[in-house]
């Protein structure tokens, strides 16, 4: 436990976004709202990855026209979580495009977007 709870404020925001995403997936009936819940979950995970690599009082890990006290490697933010978040964002875009294509096809086939009525596997 820390002395002050509000030091971990970005992590508390990540926990609230995760809870919001899981609520939208589990308790909503429209198929598009379920897709939006999955996107909220993906955004929360990317925020958690980037917030793990922060150094207090640090600068961006780029050498082009940086301020002169950023040349010390102890003053720069960790660059590895930022590189892994790039990959995660692109994969999230690909997954959500595929999900929306399936939603369009389901609407053409069943005529409705209610998840309680899309039950049987019809030929």
């Amino acid at each position, binding site marked *: 436990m820390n002395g002050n709870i509000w030091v971990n404020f970005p992590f508390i925001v990540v926990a609230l976004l995760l809870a919001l995403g899981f609520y939208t997936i589990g308790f909503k009936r429209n198929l598009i709202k379920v897709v939006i819940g999955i996107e909220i979950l993906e955004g929360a995970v990317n925020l958690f990855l980037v917030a793990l690599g922060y150094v207090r009082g640090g600068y*961006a890990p*780029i*050498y*082009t*026209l*940086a301020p*002169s006290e*950023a*040349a010390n490697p102890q003053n720069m933010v960790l660059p590895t979580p930022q590189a892994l978040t*790039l990959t995660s*964002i*692109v994969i999230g*875009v690909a997954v959500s*495009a595929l999900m*929306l*294509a399936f939603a*369009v096809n389901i609407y053409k086939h069943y005529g409705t977007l209610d998840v309680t009525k899309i039950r049987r596997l019809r030929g």
Partner: protein
Amino acid sequence: MTTTIIKTTTKILTPLILVFGSYIILHGHLTPGGGFQGGAVFASGLALLIVANKYETVKSLFEKAPLSVLESIGAVGFLGMACLGFAGYTFFKNVIANSGFLLFGGKTPSGINPGYLNTGGTLPYMNIFVGMKVLAGLTSIILVFFLIMRRERDEW
């Protein structure tokens, strides 16, 4: 939807967006950005073109555009740049860096400097190929979502 405001704004804004996306792709080794980010900005400029024109114009314009060829060139070029390291080193080794090649082969002064475009090694080539792949992929997705709706007349 093709109102007058959207048509006029698109004529002014679209070249600016496309040039900005190309700038982000090309300067990926100096400033924040790179292949994926610049490809997404370029695809959003093309999406503006798709939204602001009529159905027949978009269909006739993008039938001639070789989007699948562009994506394949991007994928094969990225793999080819990675296989350049087989000549003496390992897979994915940066063999053009610090070597004095004509294009993107210079040396970077260490420490804080204003960026020089001639540096980078295989990094700018990989940025360009990945940028081509991402813009072709995202534009194909938006185009196929637009073409299945089949609006035969304008909205207004």
